[in-house]
Every structure is written in structure tokens, then in C-alpha cells.
């Protein structure tokens, strides 16, 4: 066990300082040190995508990144996705399309989809499937998730959805 380090970062627009062991993953840090438990862990080896968060706007697997690597960076997690609303447009679309069952994979998928539509609000079905294929969902068979993401594009096109995680 090595001595803890102090890491300064922004999470969902809020500055925080957290003391972590150098081996602490970003996922564990968010979940257990900052108690943001919406980010889930399904494999800890970079395959399932459940732990996906945004680091400076880019979708990242938080189980493959160390907390000490995010010094000075801006993290966005599912807890910040709705902003002040009950649900953001992407979340609304997931609800409308029954795009979740157990909901365990959902936060990671929401974050990837949010990053995708923030950058490419006109992403077509093939592109959505390509990005979604970086995530595993065992419940839904993916079809309703694809529909939900496609249906949320409108909101991103007209700017109703805020790009998250760029720091504020």
C-alpha cells in the first residue's frame, strides 16, 4: 500500500479534492470516495462499459483509469446528466422507449450516448450501433436503446441538451 495522494478535480461542475491510494481506479474513487454510485462496475477490465464517464467531455472507462490521472480534469457522471430537470432529453427518450430493464448498464450507456450526440447530433443508426457496441447490456437486446438514442438526436440538434463535463 502506497501513501495516499491528494487529487483535485471537477465532478459535475463542482470542484472537489479527494485523497486516494495511487492504485485507486477512477470508478472506485467516484463510487466509494465521492459516493457517486450511479457509475457502475460490471467487469473492471474494460469490456462492459458500465463504468463509462466523461473526462473533459470524452467517454472514458473509469475502471481503466486511475483517480490520480484526473488531476485538474472535469468529470461528468450520470448524476449530473439531467441538470436541474427531472430527466434530461436522453434520459426521457430512454424512458419513452423502454430502453432499460435492470438499469445496471444504463448509466454508462447514457454517458457514451451523450458524448456521441453532443459531438455528432446527426449520428445515423450505424454510428449509434457502432458506439453502443462498446457496451454490454444483458437485458434489452439493444434494440430499444438504439431507438432511444436515435430519437434523442432532435434535442441535441436544437441545443436542448447541455454538453456535460466541460467544467463550469
Amino acid at each position, binding site marked *: 500500500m502506497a501513501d495516499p495522494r491528494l487529487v483535485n478535480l471537477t465532478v459535475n461542475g463542482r470542484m472537489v479534492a479527494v485523497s486516494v491510494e495511487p492504485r485507486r481506479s477512477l470508478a472506485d474513487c467516484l463510487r466509494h470516495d465521492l459516493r457517486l454510485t450511479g457509475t457502475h462496475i460490471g*467487469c473492471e477490465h474494460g469490456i462492459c462499459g458500465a463504468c463509462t464517464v466523461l473526462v473533459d467531455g470524452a467517454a472514458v472507462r473509469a475502471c481503466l483509469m486511475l483517480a490520480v490521472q484526473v488531476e485538474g480534469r472535469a468529470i461528468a*457522471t450520470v448524476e449530473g446528466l439531467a441538470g436541474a430537470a427531472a430527466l434530461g432529453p436522453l*434520459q426521457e427518450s430512454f424512458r419513452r422507449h423502454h430502453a432499460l*430493464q*435492470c438499469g*445496471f448498464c444504463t*448509466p454508462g450507456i447514457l454517458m457514451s450516448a451523450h458524448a456521441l450526440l453532443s459531438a455528432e447530433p446527426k449520428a445515423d443508426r450505424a454510428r449509434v450501433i457502432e458506439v453502443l457496441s462498446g*457496451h454490454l447490456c444483458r437485458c434489452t*437486446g439493444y434494440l430499444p436503446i438504439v431507438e432511444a438514442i436515435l430519437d434523442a438526436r432532435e434535442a441535441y440538434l436544437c441545443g436542448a441538451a447541455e454538453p456535460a463535463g466541460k467544467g463550469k
Partner: protein
Amino acid sequence: MTKANTYVGSSMPRVEDQRLLTGKGEFIDDVQLPGMLNAAVFRSSMAHAIVRRIDTSEARALPGVVAVLSAADLPRPIPRIPIRIAPIEGAERFLQPVIAEGCVRYVGEPLAIVLAESQELAEDALDRIEVDFEPLDPVSGIGDARRNATLLHPEAGTNLVADYQVTRGDPAMADDAALYRRTESFRIQRHTAVPMETRGLVAQWDAGQGRLTVRGAAKVPFFIRNHLARMLGLAQEMVELIELDVGGGFGVRGEFYPEDFLVPFASRAVGRPVKWIEDRREHFMATAHSREMECSLEIACTSEGRIIALRGEIAADLGAYVSPTGPIVPSRAAQFLAGPYHVPVLDLHVVAALSSRTPVGSYRGPGRFEAAFFRERLMDMAARDLGIAPDEFRRMNLIAASDLPYSIGQLVPYEGPASYDTGDYRAVFDRCLEDFGWAERRKLDGREVAGRLHGLGLACVIDSSGAGPGEHACLYLQQDGNVRVHVGSSALGQGIETTFTQIVADELGLHPERIRICHGSTSLLDEGHGSFHSRSLIMGGNAIVVAARALRDAIRNAAAARFGCTGDEIRLQDGRACKAEGQSTAFADLAPLEGRGSFGGAEKPFGYGTHVAHVAVDVGTGHVEIVDYLAVEDAGRIVNPAIVRGQKIGAIVQGLGGALLEHLVYDDEAQLRTASLADYMLPTAADFPQLDAVTLALAPTPRNPLGVKGAGEDAIAGPGAAVANAVAAALSRYGVEPKELPLDPPRIWALLAAAAARACR
């Protein structure tokens, strides 16, 4: 205004979604208690060995490690994990101890549990545990097991758990020399559920009260509670199991595993809360596997194609111990081998054997996926031999609507005879073929298009649902006018809070926002039987109907007393009890009232349907693409169409994973070689983007008040069979007949290579 039957039948958005979409769900690893320790389980690295000595002293000495418990620290006799369903006689000789004592029988079997101040420290300590193993020969698979050369449980004198015969009809009929017959051997690979959330528990011992609380329960919390209390010498009411949000179950989660004893036991031993979260590698070796099965099957038909008999043998690998659900797998495969067809003679030998592998348990549609593959593949071969089109062959043999209910006889040793209930198997079959454009598409069979060979395959499936004891529900009308529902069903992601809310809303004329479904704890009710075998809606839903009607009557009577009329004159609407001439009172003014109800159907309903797959096979790469896939099924009655569709699509994709991708591979030393998501291939969004499922409410069952049949499981039965038949059709020019799954590229190459070798001879 709320009209009667406004909610049942509508795709109401789910009440679960708000919390799950905002990261506010509470899954087991989200629980954090003051003073909580983390646990890590030390597991066997050997498949079969004598444990000479286990040395935990170095691990204990590590700073931050609070305790390391192994067999020596447990009370004698070491508790054994009970069988929950499918009690095959003699199976109790092979039960798993909650911790290995003296001998290990599969890679991943628990040998010790470490408790430490953090997860990292607990895992560090695992590396410092030393075990002196004396290796024994592993039992590698069914063939090895049946030879009985190495015995996994020497005191039993055999590796066979089950060895029985089931029959129906007059066997002499099948011996008619004029009949066409063909015998083939098939095999299904070991694969399993792999929910996205691994298992986990938080146990909290309250020494002052002598009370144990265990969070992380799922599926059958009351069953676990009862046995855990017995093992720990506690009264049942002193043990509470709490269900949180659950990241998928599919049959494997929530059964009694060693950790279900070890973690609570450890918490009591050290007097602190203990959290254990399974990691993904552990999950692959510690959570039940399923499906591994061989089948040798003979079909006998008339020359016109009428099936007379199916005879043969089913042999399943149950792993190293009989798990709480293990024997369900082969026994249901035998029961469903004839599927939705009229098969006058059935004669099946069922064998279940033990091997040095992870114990096998129920995985969504246990035995149905396997049975459909064996039967439907053999039917296609027979149809081809007889020169009958595959659709014609099925249509002719499907049980006619006029023959329902149809007695299937007693095909499992631990249950009485059963019968199929309602339906129109041929109508659903025709609908599926028509919607799919079968006749037109079939012209592609075996044809090459843009370098790939196309083929179509069919499968018809049937599945029982709603097994086990009845369920109970209690509805409370509260002072605030809201209704709280307590029910013994369990949530595994299938949306039961929504479905149950819809039912109550209609029965009581109450807005869904005023209804709260509580199912999370063994303290809410005296008894409950949880969620398995697509039973939540059938058992829990119908218990709620009965309880809601009792509450409705209570509300009416209370209002009638107030208005000086009879209960019949009172209508319930928008949370008010209304008398005809404009007098009404809010539910809140009549509270508190309650309604209780139970439902336990003696006979199960049977959902059924037809699946059709269109594949394109790349002979160069061995890749099989699902060009299109359709399932049409009858669920009797549908409460929430979007939820049902979600279950069907999800089940089909899982089944396609079993057909084409998923495989738990063991080497000769019985080491598991696919213990990560990089090695075990789950379907992704890119694998099967083109498919559809249509669910009809064609024939409500008379076997429960709602008229519903299970919706969660039956759709997984079709894909293995339909895809394999489609691949055979695509590769018909080579005479390729897939008899084993998964149909991954190496297997397709092997089939083509074998065909080429045959052609050269």
C-alpha cells in the same frame, strides 16, 4: 378521469426508470455501512484435489486484515446447500458444503474468506494464503463422468445424480418396421446467464438484538432466509433478507450459494457489517453455469411425415455438486423434448452426471433451449429425407387447437402429469411465416448472394410458466389515500413494480402515482416465493388481483355504510368511492383498510410460439450473420406490451448468443479458460441489429384470473434451433448438418472441412 382497464394493456412508462436513469438506483455495491469490512473469497485453483493444509497465518498478519475464516473456523457439520427445485431422488448425496473441507471439486470452490478494512487489502491478503493440494484426476465432462473411473463423491459410489426413464404412449407403435426413422446425436455447449451486475451481499449482525440483516437478496429471498436461519441456529424472524435494485438475474442470481452463508456467518463472527462483491472473474467460476447437454435421439414417422415417436437419451453435466436448481436442467429438457407437437410415443432416458466443473443451475428457459435444438434439428433432417418442406412438416405435426388442452403425461419424476392449456399453435405458426415472408424468402435457401450463402430456419417452442408454491399479497389503503402493496415476488429488472401498479390501478380506479409496490424484504410478509420460472405476474400478479378485489370490496362496504346504501351501488373512480347520485368520498376518508389475497394455480399455463431465422454464411470466414429474425408468440394476455416486447427481444438476443457466441470452455485439467468478458463472448449491439418479436394475446389461459402466461422465458428457447436450421439450409450444397453449438467460425470451418473430406472420399 380513470376508466376501468385503462392501464392494463398499455405500455405505461416504467415506475422504476426515474431512479435508474439518474444514477439513484441502489445496487448492492452502493451500500455503505459504518464500520463495514470488505470480504474476498479465496478459491480453489485446482479442479480436483485433496486439501492437505491451508495456511492463513501470513494473510492474517497483514495490517488491515481482521479475520481469515476457513473450514476449520466453521461449526460442524459444515452446512450443505439445499436443493430448492427438482428434487431428484438421491441428489441429496451430492450437495455442496458452504466451504470446501478436505477436498475441492471445481476451480473456484471457496476455501476461505478474508475480512479486511478495504477491498484492496482483502484482495492483497488472498495472495498470502497457502494451500497444500494433493492433485486428483479431474472428471472432464459427461463421458468421463459416466465411466465412473474417478469418483467426485466416493461415498456415493457413482458420479450419476439421475438415471431414469420417462415414457408416454405405446412403445410397440414405434417399432412398426414400415416407419421412417433416423437417429442423430447432438450437443449443447456449457454457457450461462452472465447478468451485468455480479452477485454481492452486505451482512449486518446486530449482537444486541441477536438479529441478522442481509442485503443483496434476489429471486427467492424467503427460501434463502429460511435456510440461512436454520444454518445459523437463528429464528426465522431474526433474519431479514433485503432486496435492492438487481442488475439482472436470468435464473442464476439469488439462489443459495456458499457466500450466502459465509458472508453472514463472517459478520456474526467479527461483529461488524461485511460487504462481499463478486468480481467478474469470480463470477465466471462461482456463479452457476448451465445448458451443457448431449442428446442421442431417434425420430420415427410415417412416410407422409406424421411423427410417431421420439426416443433416445439426454445426458447433462451438472458440474461438481447438485446446486439448488441443477436437476431442473435435464428434467425439463426431457419434458419439453416433444415441444408443441403431437408425438404419440416418447421414450427418453435421462442421465445427469457430475464433473469437475462449476455447478450447473437454472438459466432462463432451462432445458427448453436445449430440447428445441435437439428436436427441431432432427425434424429438419427427417423432413429433408422424406422430401417434405420444413414448414409443411411442422404444420402437419403441431398440436391442433381442437386437441387442446392436451395431456403430455408425466414426464418429470418429481411432478404429476401435466397438460398444455389454451392456444392455436398453427395459427401462430402461420402468422409468423406470413409476417416474415417465408414463402418468398425461402427461394433464397442455399443460394449465394454477394459471396455469402443464405438460408432459412424454423423452430416452434412451448414453455410452461409460473411454477412453485402460491404467492401472497397485501394491499393497505393508507390515511393519505395511497395504496401500499406488499407482495412476495422479486424484482430482477423485469419491471414488476410497473406491471403490478397497472393491475392495482385498474382494479381500484386509482392513479398509478398513488400506488407503491413493496417487495424488497422478508419482513413485509410471512411468506413469499419470489420470482423464477416466469412466475411473477402469474403468481404475484394474480395474488395482487385477489387482494385488490378484497380491498375494493372493503372500500365499497365502508362507503356504503357512510351513504346508507349497498356496496354494489358504489363505483370506484379516480381515488374516490362514488354513489350513483353524485355523492362521493375520497379513499383517504375511508382509510385505513386492507385487502389480502393469495394465488396458487395447480396447473401451469403454457406460452408458445414460432421462431424463424434468415442467415447468411460467409464460407471464407465462417461468420454467420442474422439477416433477419422473427418470433411470434402467444402470451395469453398482456399487461404492458412494451415490457413484454423488451422481455422477448432480450431473450432472443440471449438465445442468439447461445447459438452463435457464448461458450464456457474447459481444458483437460478442468481449468476454465473463459473467465473474462474478453474471452466469453456476449452479444453486442452490432451482432444482431435486425430482429423482431410479436407477442399476441390470442388465447388467455383459464388457469389464472388474469389469463396471463409467462413472458420472460419462452423466447430464449427458439434461437439455437432456428439458427442451426438456417445454417443447415444455407450450407445444404455441402450437406452440412450442425449438431453442436455454438455455430462460431471455428465450428463452421470444421463442418465445411468435414464436408469437403466426405466429398473427396
